[in-house]
């Protein structure tokens, strides 16, 4: 079996509407390995959600090919397999909740897949345990905090047993506590459940721990590499209007002043050691 989870080959995507056409993705080539934790960084309008929707077969490429676990997203017979393989979590937790009790909400996906009730029970319990929401299973989702709601949405995806989870700015509407809860869950999915993760965000703190980052701008991938490789290009990141960790920027400034330190500092501890 191949070790590639997602592969985009020369993908263009054009939105067509009454007002005209808009090329939202231009010549995207991207391979995501099984078990990889990929972060996609970029501004609003850079094409991140379009990319996510192409992977989930919610959109089909105008040119080029998108493969999910070897399946071509234009193959209509495979569409449900593709969506089961790559589950999506969206930005607004309120739009993803369908039931009035947490465990029913989590069971919704597998129920729709026609899974038998005993297996659903097992999956729901396990999913809630992974996102650490077991004790809320009888609660009403709308009374939970944003971070908790988002973890319920993740549990709902997990209950469908996907190999890959795509999260489209799942933390954008959350406060710092909610953001760190969701990030802890995402890391756990990757490290302990071995899920392939495509995490879309504009918070650079969330990108620091990724295996790899791609930076999008105007429908293209303009930077790619490990967090260390990407963030050490402070000037380029700033030009793109993206953040880098304050210590990375500080190290960069000191280096410009002739202080002899590495360019690719990422954490407070590294900078303390370097100076």
């Amino acid at each position, binding site marked *: 079996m191949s070790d590639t989870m997602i592969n985009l080959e020369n993908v263009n995507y054009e939105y067509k509407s009454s007002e005209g056409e808009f090329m939202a993705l231009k010549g995207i080539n991207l391979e995501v390995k099984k078990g990889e934790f990929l972060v996609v960084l970029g501004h609003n309008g850079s094409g991140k959600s379009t990319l996510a929707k192409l992977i989930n077969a919610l959109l089909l490429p105008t040119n080029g090919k998108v493969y999910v676990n070897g399946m071509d997203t234009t193959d209509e017979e495979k569409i449900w397999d593709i969506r089961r393989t790559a589950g999506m979590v969206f930005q607004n937790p309120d739009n993803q909740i369908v039931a009035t009790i947490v465990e029913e909400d989590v069971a919704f996906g597998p129920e729709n897949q026609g899974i038998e009730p005993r297996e659903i029970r097992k999956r729901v319990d396990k999913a809630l345990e992974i996102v650490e929401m077991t004790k809320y299973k009888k609660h009403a989702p709308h009374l939970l905090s944003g971070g908790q709601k988002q973890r319920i949405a993740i549990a709902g995806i997990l209950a469908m047993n996907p190999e890959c989870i795509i999260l489209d700015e799942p933390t954008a509407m959350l406060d*710092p506590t909610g953001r760190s809860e969701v990030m802890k869950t995402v890391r756990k999915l990757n490290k302990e459940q071995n899920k392939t993760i495509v995490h879309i965000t504009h918070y650079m703190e969330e990108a620091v721990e990724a295996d790899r980052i791609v930076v999008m701008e105007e429908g293209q991938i303009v930077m790619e590499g490990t967090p260390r490789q990407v963030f050490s290009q402070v000037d380029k990141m700033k030009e793109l209007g*993206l953040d880098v960790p304050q210590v990375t920027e*500080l190290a960069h400034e000191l280096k410009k002043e002739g202080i002899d330190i590495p360019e690719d500092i990422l954490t407070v501890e590294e900078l*303390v050691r370097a100076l």
Partner: protein
Amino acid sequence: MMIKIENLNFIYNPDSPFETKALNNINLEINEGDFIGLLGHTGSGKSTLIQHLNGLIKPTSGSIIVDGVDITEKGADLKSIRQKVGLVFQYPEYQLFEETVYKDIAFGPKNLGLDDSEIDSRVKKAMELVGLDFDSLKDRSPFELSGGQKRRVAIAGVLAMEPKVLILDEPTAGLDPRGRDEILGEIKDLYNKGNITIILVSHSMEDVARLVNKIVVMHKGEIAMEGTPREVFRRAEELESMGLGIPQVTYFMRKYKESGNDVSSDVLTIDEAKEELLRYLRRNGND
């Protein structure tokens, strides 16, 4: 203009099973020309507090004196208070409703009964302050605009009232870094022009550290700290115990100092840290 809050208490849903004490004996003075950063964990009472300042919420007890007038008294002229104290809600773009950008921004001034030429000049000025091009955007529907632009329209609507005190509840929530920097830049420019007091509710220690001249920290409905950014960010452990932090550079300087380097950890920004480190490193001949 000054705001003085005295012994303010507020309870949501009193005498019901859902009773929540949101504000507990708040005492605070806001002086003319202050630029205040209001910090606190979600649920600490920030939004409840600021909605008291223009009379949107009536206190359970206590008084709020705006420009010498107790706005909690019966018969207080709330219309004139809301003109003086402008409040931009969180995610204000959800409250846009007019069919054009112009009409949305003009809504408040129109309600003040201003004449058309005054309204026109205020709309123009407000749009300029938030970086929206008047000619190309005035007739557009606000709903067609990008998220960042919609938010600017909402802010411009409050600015067009020419408030003396501007309160913004997490104005950068959900924006990308560029959108955030643009809006914060516009708020800063507005402040630097003078004649305005600003209260900024924020979750970003880094943003607050470089913008405001006073910080108020709320915790469980009470004011837990008050002081300059330097004073407040010295109390890192206390902030952490409230689920808050300090800017990463400030944290770094503390760690660097703890590991035996004789530097001041009293820095708030990257520039200050750089200056302090260069002074220290060069004196020690690492050059």
